[in-house]
């Protein structure tokens, strides 16, 4: 689920941070810039892992900022393809089920990736899975589920010029990083279905 990414960057320490230890000032600076943000094709950054190297601090002309070139590693959330993860159902529409974790909510399970026999119940806005014997199992909201990562979708959100903005008017802005998953396999789906004790849960 998590990887380390090595990055080189320029850190600018403001004079009001001079009372901090240099390493702490750099750490705070990096975290403020990266934590909880998505880098395209890298993933959701969590926090600094370690500082590999830092140059001497140089003060530029005109400002009191101390410039430091640093190399560091970041902890990044980037589940790999076919990784199995835990999450919770947040809502469902005809297109599929939305799943979230506490820190990342852009997970989507399209209807085609649900087990065979899954149907949408419009009145309740829920999916259910009809077994061969006719009994129904519901994908209730907020249920803890297990799912497998199938695909990731990146959307570049760089700012647009006025002209482009007019062209794009009406389209919904999508999140920078969306993960598509699947529950179409034995053992995937709500954990309560599979983790039952004893023999009756084992088919």
């Amino acid at each position, binding site marked *: 689920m*998590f990887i380390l990414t090595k990055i080189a960057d320029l850190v600018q320490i403001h004079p009001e941070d001079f009372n901090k230890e240099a390493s702490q000032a750099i750490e705070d600076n990096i975290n403020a810039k990266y934590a909880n943000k998505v880098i395209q094709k*890298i993933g959701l950054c969590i926090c600094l892992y370690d500082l590999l190297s830092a140059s001497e601090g140089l003060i530029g002309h005109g400002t009191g900022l101390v410039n430091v070139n640093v190399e560091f590693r970041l902890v990044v959330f980037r589940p*790999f393809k076919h990784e199995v993860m835990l999450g919770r159902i947040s809502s469902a529409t005809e297109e599929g089920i939305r799943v979230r974790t506490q*820190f990342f909510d852009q997970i989507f399970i399209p209807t085609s990736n649900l087990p065979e026999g899954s149907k949408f119940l419009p009145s309740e806005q829920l999916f259910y899975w009809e077994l061969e014997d006719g009994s129904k199992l519901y994908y209730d909201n907020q*249920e803890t589920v297990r799912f497998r990562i199938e695909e990731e979708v990146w959307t570049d959100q760089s700012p647009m010029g006025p002209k482009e903005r007019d062209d794009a008017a009406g389209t919904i802005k999508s999140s920078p990083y969306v993960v598509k998953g699947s529950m179409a396999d034995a053992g995937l789906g709500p954990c309560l279905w599979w983790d039952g004790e004893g023999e009756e849960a084992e088919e």
Partner: protein
Amino acid sequence: MKILEAQSATLTNYEVYTHLMDQRARYAKKEMQGRRPGNLETVVKELLEYFHEAPSPLGSKPFPYNEHTIRTLFDRLRPYDFTKAEFLMILNLRPIKPENLNTIVEEMEGRFPGEELQREICEIIAEVLGKPDGEAERHAMSENAIEARKELERQGENVEIE
């Protein structure tokens, strides 16, 4: 910003968890001046909540990991030839039933035929990582779901009143 290496290593949940806990301890201890960036606090808090929530092994008691766990489990599972990705998921998810192992391991029937062999693997995992308290875990999961649904309802009511 320049990306030097997009993926220099993969981390297990346990490693991320210890890193976050160390970081917290460090921040608490030094009586450090100033606060940490808000976005960091947010993501760390949410991530720890995620790690603690049933059925994550990191939330179960007794705590199933220590610094030797990865080594021990790796040595004991060596004869079965799991891929690195599979091993990582075994560590993160602690599958102790063949059905759960099946989601992680590709072509399980082909590679590990027979229930006996699969149970044997699960036994090893359970020995190293411990067994979850199934009853308590399921209870916690349903409680969490009910709690969250109530919370949503409350929010809905508030909106109506306003």
